[in-house]
């Protein structure tokens, strides 16, 4: 997979606010907090944690400059297991907490950890607003299409008709498409990965980190207790090649067991083609351009139920990426501008105000 390499380079160029520093070499182990990890055996969260610990040493950050902020959910236990700063906050509010922290401490590398319930049910509004504001934050959205921690109710990403604890006769809600939601909220970086592809996940974590702006990374995560196999069609060997497509910037959209399938854009309508058939070669294919908003919308709509005949493969990788000014920078710039214009504030003058008078003894 090329993304990894590409990004390892770019990480060095774009150091995400925290300077690259000479420091004792950190290893994945140095990021283990020593707290007993308390997810169910087999939970997809383990892999995500592991990949995170793997890539952290490569980011060129000091441990103390990293902060993980989560809401509530199984996924939100994540910060406890990393020997960095961390806050396990309240349900759905991590983006708001991270906003206050980033606004005041732009030099920190801040990671928001959230789940499909935490991030898109109770926390949907903060999610949308943090995306439009575009702080330099990384959001890891653990999507297991279920409420794990509260023991198995459906979530806003659960498929229609899901039988869960709260919907014994099937859920009725039309689910959110998280990436479409993030794009609709003007997210400047929108991507997808999965717990069961360690390499891809590592690569995407790095890319997300390297993006200057709010990175929204959806991670398909298996909850083997309450929603086992929700994503197996995308993650398991047998079905993965035909049901997934891995996006690389500048590369054609090919997939299939032998990379024999591709996607073309017929006008703005995507079609699946067999390479070689009707003279179609990779040159005819849709070339992925992660800076193209319209195409990212089309890709985000590759969202059909994979059991449906003729469905498009589910894309993984960076859907969209845009350089947009950072909210924290705008804040600090404004402070500077005003200070330059008005001079550094004089407290006594401020307290006295414009009109004073003196009472003599």
């Amino acid at each position, binding site marked *: 997979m090329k993304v990894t390499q590409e990004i390892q380079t770019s990480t060095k160029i774009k150091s995400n606010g925290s300077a690259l520093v000479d420091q004792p070499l950190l290893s994945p182990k140095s990021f283990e907090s020593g707290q007993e990890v308390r997810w169910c055996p087999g939970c997809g969260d383990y892999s995500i944690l592991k990949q995170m610990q793997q890539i952290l040493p490569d980011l060129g950050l000091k441990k103390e400059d990293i902060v993980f902020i989560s809401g509530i959910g199984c996924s939100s236990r994540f910060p406890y297991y990393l020997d*960095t700063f961390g806050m396990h906050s309240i349900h759905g509010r991590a983006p708001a907490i991270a906003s206050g922290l980033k606004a005041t401490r732009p030099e920190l590398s801040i990671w928001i950890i959230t789940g499909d319930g935490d991030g898109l049910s109770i926390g949907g509004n903060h999610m949308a607003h943090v995306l439009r504001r575009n702080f330099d934050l990384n959001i890891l959205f653990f999507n297991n299409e279920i409420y794990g921690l509260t023991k198995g109710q459906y979530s806003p990403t659960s498929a229609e008709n899901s039988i869960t604890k709260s919907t014994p006769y099937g859920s009725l809600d039309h689910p959110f498409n998280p990436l479409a939601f993030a794009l609709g909220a003007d997210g400047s970086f929108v991507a997808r990965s999965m717990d069961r592809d360690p390499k891809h996940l590592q690569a995407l974590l790095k890319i997300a980190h390297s993006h200057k702006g709010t990175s929204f990374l959806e991670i398909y995560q298996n909850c083997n207790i309450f929603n086992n196999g929700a994503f197996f069609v995308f993650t398991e060997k047998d079905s993965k090649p035909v049901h997934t497509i891995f996006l690389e910037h500048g590369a054609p959209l090919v997939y299939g067991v032998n990379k024999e399938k591709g996607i073309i854009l017929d006008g703005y309508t995507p079609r699946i083609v067999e390479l070689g058939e009707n003279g179609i070669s990779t040159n005819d294919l849709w070339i992925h351009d992660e800076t193209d908003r319209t195409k990212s919308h089309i890709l985000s709509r590759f969202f059909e139920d994979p059991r449906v005949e003729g469905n498009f493969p589910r894309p993984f990788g960076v859907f969209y990426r845009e350089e947009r000014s950072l909210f924290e920078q705008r804040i600090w710039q404004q402070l500077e501008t005003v200070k330059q214009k008005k001079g550094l504030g004089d407290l006594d003058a401020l307290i006295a105000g414009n009109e004073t008078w003196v009472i003599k003894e």
Partner: protein
Amino acid sequence: MSKFIEERKNVVVKFAGDSGDGMQLVGMQFTNNTALIGNDLGTFPDFPAEIRAPQGTIPGVSGFQIHFGSTEIYTPGDACDVLVAMNAAALKSNLTNLKPGGIIIANTDGFDAKNLRLAGYEENPLNNESLQSYLLHKIDITKLTRESLKDNPLGTRDKDRSKNMFVLGFIYWLFNRDIKNTEAFLKRKFINEHDILDANLKTLRAGYNYGDITESIGQRYMVRAAKMEPGKYRSVTGNPALALGLIAASLKSGLKAFYGSYPITPASDILHELAKHKNFDVITFQAEDEIAAICSAIGASYGGNLGITGTSGPGMALKTEALGLAIMLEIPLVVINIQRAGPSTGLPTKTEQADLLQAVYGRNGESPLVVMAASTPSSCFDMAYEAVRIAVEHMTPVVLLSDGYIANGAEPWRFPTSDALPEIKVSIAKEKDAAEQKYLPYQRNEDLVRQWAVPGTSGFEHRIGGLEKEDITGNISYDPENHQKMVKTREAKIERIAKYIPKQTIDQGAEKGRLLILGWGSTYGSIRSAVRDLLEEGYDVAHAHLHYIKPFPENLGEILRNYEKVLIPEINNGQLIRLIRDTFLIPAIGYNKIKGTPITKNELKEQVYSMLSIEKEIASVGEI
């Protein structure tokens, strides 16, 4: 020219007109002028309800009341001596509040057929006998304004905008004032708008001169400077004072102020004020809602800054879950509630003190925090500063209560110099400390305060959250004994703050006696004025005013037991009284007014008269 000038000890003037008539500006200018000549004063702006109501109607009336004198002034005054009525609705809605024999200055142009209809007058009150018992001055202000601006190139609509300056000029004349500082203000304000400036200056002078010229008014008044404590003064309203207190505390503590807020009446002005002072390195963040606002402040505090959030009642309700988190995290946080009349949306522009029990008890679980209250516009500065001091030094959220009345009311303020402000001790862990021993997030000092360690500090990496924490380590703990210990510790930590706040004092009256009036918050001025009168009248009454409600000052119980009776006036249905009765088991008696307006001095005096005379009745009031 030289008309008779009568001296008065104190005067109440009410400016009333349509929302578009600029009465607030007139009020503020007159206030500044009054302050500058050394009167003591109190003001109360009286806005129309939140939506701009139709012109000419009673809901559309905007008023500004000022009480000034050569004596001490603590309230905007119960009833007016002078009423300026720019239109019929303004007269109608304010007349009941005018003293018999009081002066009415009526803009006749505002009493045309349409205005009379909208105000619900059948006849023009200026032309019948209904106002006989007052001193009525009818002035066609609109006409006079236009006349004085004959040469000004502005259109009529724009010209009419300066009508309010005519009023101001005339009132200056009436009270024998100098118009210079308002001229200076106008010159600053309209520095780039020459024609508007010209119009305003001309009309101001026209109003002043009108007093001299017209024959009908034979009387002028003057109020001498008050005997006030020597020092440098300014005039201040509560919300800006509060904002200044926060900035001062930020600079003195060396902590960057971060104000996360969502607009809501009457708290928005704090956001507006802070946003003006970015050169003091204040970050203001208009969040998507009140939950995000408090959470952003928590994030800022977590990062080692001064996290502050401010709101009013309904917004406070939304913050309660996050307040619980801040209590668990034990980080500094200042939460300001500028109370307004509730419940629910209630009466957003009216004042009330009905969020006290919410502040003390309104969270899930045992969640103690500090509750304080400002009592006057200038005390908003002091209490904001105090709130920061306590939050930072004791690692706790502090709820600071103010209300619409003091938020918008003005008074002269003998402001402190920055040197005179108390020290705020900040103790954030430094990197070098790390070597000495492992950081234990919930280890406490003798005041049960844990150590603040913030991201970016090598060696202090740690994880905290809203789950119950193990004593000392801060690790998650489900241990039953630990939970009880932590609940008790959090409570004890807050109670221990009583050692670090001033002892309760008696504001006026004897240290022991028959009746103590115990107040909190914005009733200060009314109680003080009432008690001053009552003491003069020879009643055995005293006044104590609480600024710290959780914890109470250490000596409060002692003080309460020094009086036969305790009366607690509140602008609510009885809230502080519940805390007092519960804590001290004394049969305190409430005086409650829930009309969206302050308690007046006279109302309170009446209550005291009746209490101190009808002894028997009171004795039997055991339960409330």
